[in-house]
């Protein structure tokens, strides 16, 4: 598998957590190019979060366990670098923003600067990055608040700002909007769209299939630790196996129920066009 211009490569990767009877991911091969925005979806225990942990190096560096195959992140084998060393270029946003924050800072802006400070970034540079990251996720007005006084949604934005202040090249997002209301979700996706446009590679685990199809040019569907489909959302969600085991966007289901012939639409704009033609 060619490694040039790739952000993330999985080569026949299987991984089992320590003392686990079965593998969390089995024989996965995947190549993600620099600047891609890839959505990962699947039911519970599909291996989506493990995929992120492997890319970050937390599996196996933190969890132990058995890793077979090769994970190459920004052209470096995952076995060569510790998580801490990798943190300069790769960021991982966890599902629970409460545990993502350091728990040691008394102000939101100090919390955002925690990562760059750990990397020895100069004080002026930290201040600039903090300001930029807070503005990006829309929390500048919360700068003086205590992190623990924030709502779940605000905390999730803070966690994302903390990662963005590290200026990662590869961003791994494990359900980044799980705590957000629709307006907050839309705001975060706008931020991600901007980051994607600036060339950052994004791998995003997401359950909301409509969102995934709207945002991600490429979708990976996983079931029981294996990739069952990988490609553009129109292709992935028109496969019967994906529809049965992962589900399909509401527009796809609607078109199918309405008796339209495939390929069914996966996005709102496509569905509007299809149904518009039919009504006309």
């Amino acid at each position, binding site marked *: 598998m060619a490694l040039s211009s790739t952000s993330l490569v999985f080569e026949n990767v299987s991984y089992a957590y320590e003392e686990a009877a079965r593998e969390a991911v089995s024989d996965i091969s995947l190549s993600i190019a620099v600047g891609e925005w890839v959505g990962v979806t699947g039911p519970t225990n599909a291996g989506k979060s493990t995929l992120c942990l492997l890319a970050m190096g*937390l599996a196996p560096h933190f969890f132990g366990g058995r890793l077979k195959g090769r994970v190459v992140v920004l052209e470096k084998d995952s076995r060569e670098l510790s998580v*801490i*060393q990798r943190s300069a270029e790769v*960021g*991982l946003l966890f599902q629970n923003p409460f*545990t993502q924050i350091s*728990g040691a800072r008394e102000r939101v802006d*100090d919390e955002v600067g925690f990562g760059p400070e750990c990397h020895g970034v100069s004080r002026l540079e930290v201040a600039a990055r903090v300001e930029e990251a807070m503005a990006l996720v829309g929390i500048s007005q919360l700068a003086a608040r205590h992190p623990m006084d924030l709502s779940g949604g605000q905390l999730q934005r803070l966690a994302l700002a903390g*990662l963005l202040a590290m200026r990662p090249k590869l961003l791994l997002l494990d359900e980044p909007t799980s705590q957000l209301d629709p307006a907050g979700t839309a705001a975060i996706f706008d931020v991600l769209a901007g980051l994607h446009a600036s060339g950052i590679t994004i791998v995003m685990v997401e359950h909301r299939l409509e969102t995934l199809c709207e945002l991600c040019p490429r979708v990976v569907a996983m079931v029981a630790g294996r990739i069952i489909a990988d490609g553009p959302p129109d292709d992935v969600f028109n496969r019967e196996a994906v529809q049965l085991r992962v589900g399909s966007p509401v527009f796809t289901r609607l078109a199918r129920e309405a008796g339209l012939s495939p390929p069914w639409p996966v996005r709102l704009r496509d569905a509007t066009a299809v149904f518009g033609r039919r009504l006309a």
Partner: protein
Amino acid sequence: MAGGLSLYAEGKSLLHRAHPLTKGALTLSAIAIAFIAPSIGWVLGIGVILLVLVTAAGVLRRLLAVAAAILLPITLLLLAVQGFANANNRTVAFALGPIVYYREGLAIAALAALRIACLVCATFLFSFTTRPADISEALMQRGLSTRMGYVVQSALQIIPQTLDMAGRIQDAQRARGLETEGSLPRRARAYLPLMLPLVLSSLVATQERAMALEVRGFGLPVKRVARFEFADSPLQRVLRWVLIGAVPAAIAARLAGWR
């Protein structure tokens, strides 16, 4: 959600602006000398100095509220125990029938209460004028390791967070019908279903936070850049040494017969 344990009160006084280590030296030496000083006059003097500083820092009202709650029961207890039951009691101060109150006990109780008052006053003066984060930052700038600095910083945040989590677990268990109020045996029975999820969720949170810290580069062997410079001056540096030096000097004076 709960905030940190900080008692810091915003202000622009000289004490608010002083270097955290200067305030730390002032606090520790005031407490130490109050306990080393031999007589009530000296301890009262230290107390007056502390009260002047508290007033100058603009936190007198806050201090009085906290100090009254802490000191009133302690003082009353000391006065009662020492005045009525101290082994050295000889001179009667007053008598109410068979109950006799003694001067010696009153003097000992007053001295002990004043020392505790100095301790409370100095500690809260420090807490009201110094952010917890500034203490660890100042210590890290003086060579404390980043890991130890993190421990100091996070320790002050973890108690309210744990209390907050315990409250949420208690609410969740109540919603499922667990009786958490009422008689002592009933409360004791409710303890296990509350403690088990609290301990387990704390362990999970600790593991997740450890991962999150690694992801943010915590522990990288790089030279740490100070987050900010504390205002310091030759006068403050001299003052720190004087305050620190006053403690062994007081011990020496006491050994030499300071009465």
